[in-house]
């Protein structure tokens, strides 16, 4: 009986601490800095927005590479 309880508690604690870890990781990344924006996050979760986010990342990468080249030349 107690070994089952121990197992249940153990699994429960591991799972809940894993979830807490994910939450801390997200909070450190700034996901919860803006409480209002966070609540509306779901509204902006379409495929189109995802694609735009990827495009934006590519653009930023290109800009950064260009800037680095310019800095090296100097």
């Amino acid at each position, binding site marked *: *009986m*107690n070994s089952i*309880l*121990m197992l249940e*508690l153990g699994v*429960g*604690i591991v799972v*809940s601490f894993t979830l*807490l870890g994910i*939450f*801390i990781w997200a*909070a*450190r990344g700034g996901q*919860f*800095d*803006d*409480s*209002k*924006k966070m609540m*509306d996050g779901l*509204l*902006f979760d*379409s495929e*189109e927005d995802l694609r*735009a986010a990827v495009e*934006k990342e590519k*653009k*930023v990468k290109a*800009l*950064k590479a*260009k*800037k*680095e080249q*310019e*800095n090296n030349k100097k």
Partner: protein
Amino acid sequence: MSNVKCTHCQLEFDESVMITEEENPDVYFCCNGCQGVYHLLKEDGLESFYEKVGNNTIAPPLEIESDSHSFDLESFKQRYIKTTEEGFSSVDLVIEGIHCAACIWLNEKVLANTEGIVDATINFTNNKAKIIWDEETIPLSKVIDTIRSIGYNAYPYDRSAEDIKATKNKKDYFMRMAIAIFASMNIMMIDIAKYAGFFQGMKEETLHLVHIAEFIFATPVLFYSGWIFFRGAYYGLKNHIVNMDLLVSAGATLTYIYSLFVLFGGRGHSYFDSVAMIITFVLVGKYLEVIGKKNAVDTMDKIRSGVPHEATIVEDGVKRVVALDAIEVGDILEVKRGEKASVDGVLIGSSATFDESSLSGESLPVEKKEGDTIYSGTINSGKVIRYTATKNYANSTLSNIVNLLEDALSSKPEIEDTTNELSKYFSITILLLSLGTFGAWYWWGGDFEQALIVAISVIVIACPCALALATPIASLIGISWAAEKGLLFKEAKFIETFSKADTVVLDKTGTITEGKLEIKKISGDASQEQLRLLYAMSDGSNHPVSLAIKRYLEQKYPDITPIELRHIEQVEGQGIEAYYGDIRVLGGNSRLMKSRGISLDFESEYTLYHFAIDDQLLLSFELDDRLKEGIVELIAYLDSINVEVVMATGDHERVAQRVAQEIALKHYKSALSPIEKANYIKRLKEQGKKVVMVGDGINDALALSYADVAIAMGSGADVALAVSDVVILNNSLQAIQDSFIISRRTFTFIKQNLALSLIYNVITIPIAMAGYVIPLVAALSMSLSSLMVVGNSMRIKIKDNK
């Protein structure tokens, strides 16, 4: 004609006034701005903005008169632009015109699509934006133009060290609080099993397992979340102060040690749940305080962003843009239409019209003639003017107001919190009692272990849960009750402050009166056709008088349509002159009529507007601000509960006296500048009064920040809303009466709750000191005391439901 929604801003207007397009019959626009933004978004493939807006309405695009070249000036760069590690430029902005999440999405999207912008993030909560861009690809002025092109505006702000600190602090507290809540919720679940075991029986080994699980969850709460209490206690002791932090950390640590002793010694009952609860409850309260401080910093940044960042000096006919600090007394300054005067001075050359609503609260533009004083922060609403600086920036009105606001916000006066005071004495008493118990048991019993257990159980049974819950639960119910009535209390502590208030200071325009002109009397006569000319003239102006005339005509003649006029000329501070064919049409004040050779024999204590066609006076309107509904009842109510009411206004004596008479008000103060208004509040407080200030304009912001409780009308200026403690969402005066009823009743219940939890302790602590605390008693009494407080608080709203 029916009302239709503007396709862009979603505001409803009569179909006849909407702009339509032949090629798109389904779209309607209320103005050219909305039409422009709609097409711009369509071209950029951003129509999904309208899906995201949903049923929200947004403001029509802002009309911005100043150009953006100043953002590229060297003085601007030195002050606001920083360089990132990669060599990009970065600026912090406050974005104006944001209403919903879709606005944020649109701004971020448009900026992300702009060539040269590396990153643009906008915070919805405080409308602050951080933009990183490549200076070599795009200048900042173009970035600003992009934001303006979609109907918003941006102001730079100097991100202060206090803002960076407040943001970091808020994040730190958020993390600690989140972990504490997470762990406490888990402990509560485990507690259900534990307490059920007391009644139904539980094996010793199973109980041990439950204790281990609670130990795992309580440990991070005490050492990570509770760290700030240890830190606070340390600094307190270093400065020889016994503070709340010391008592919270001492109580929690002793309980934790006792529970560890039980866990590993295998005797008695552990109290890890109490450890987690104490830390969590107090931490949530502290987090709310931290948010309050962050809001104050955000408010200051918003106020500072409204200050002009440079001025144009004219020297020997050459114009030069300089930073505000470089302006010296005697310099000649130029202010274009729509710009703010940056320092105080006197007007030279021609006459001018200034919007002084930021100082006086009055919406009518003020006319200035040569030699008149120009106040910093007021907006030039006429043609380009020049004036001589009589003060430097640091001594000017605007800078004074900003500095005073800063001081007031950073040291917002507070009434001493009853619960905090009480729990301080309570905790000291408990610690002393516990120490005494330990001494007595050790002295007479001689058993160190036994003495320690009994001493710690005194602390545990005193369970600050009920005490900690007494105020928050009652406040929460009070606040939610207030919200139902359209009242937003920004922080719970204002319920207590409000309930003790004995003086209410009311602003005039926008609070006692509607702030909207209404026609009191009309003299003369005009035909339908002539009225259409008057309608056409008032249709073309945004002046409050024109708007009132237009409203009146639309109400009286619902089918009235304007006639097209030509050569429409706005005569500064006087009115409008226009032509219909060869007929000259005039609409304006007595000075306009006299200057055009029309003789007048008309005097009134109200605002006058005359209408003349071909030099013949047809109509004269007398206009006045309308009283708000319910003001007389409110004043009667406040009188009945012995609260003193005072009207404080920037208006002159005659107007103030008339309004005071109309509403049967005994006390009023007239012709007060924003600083005088604030000083008046300060004087009242020095006399020992607890002051509630109600206002809505930028001119009230300083006085609001000085008051014990500041109430702003929901439709008021951004700054007034930001510095207020209570916001009246539905703009009704009844809400002020409701705030008194709700706060006084809630505070009575807070006092009852505190009394209940103290009575509970008076009964249980002696039992614990005598060493009779068995786990069952502890478990029962803990839950009972909390239930008692929650149950009592539920009664707050009963009166309202009857």
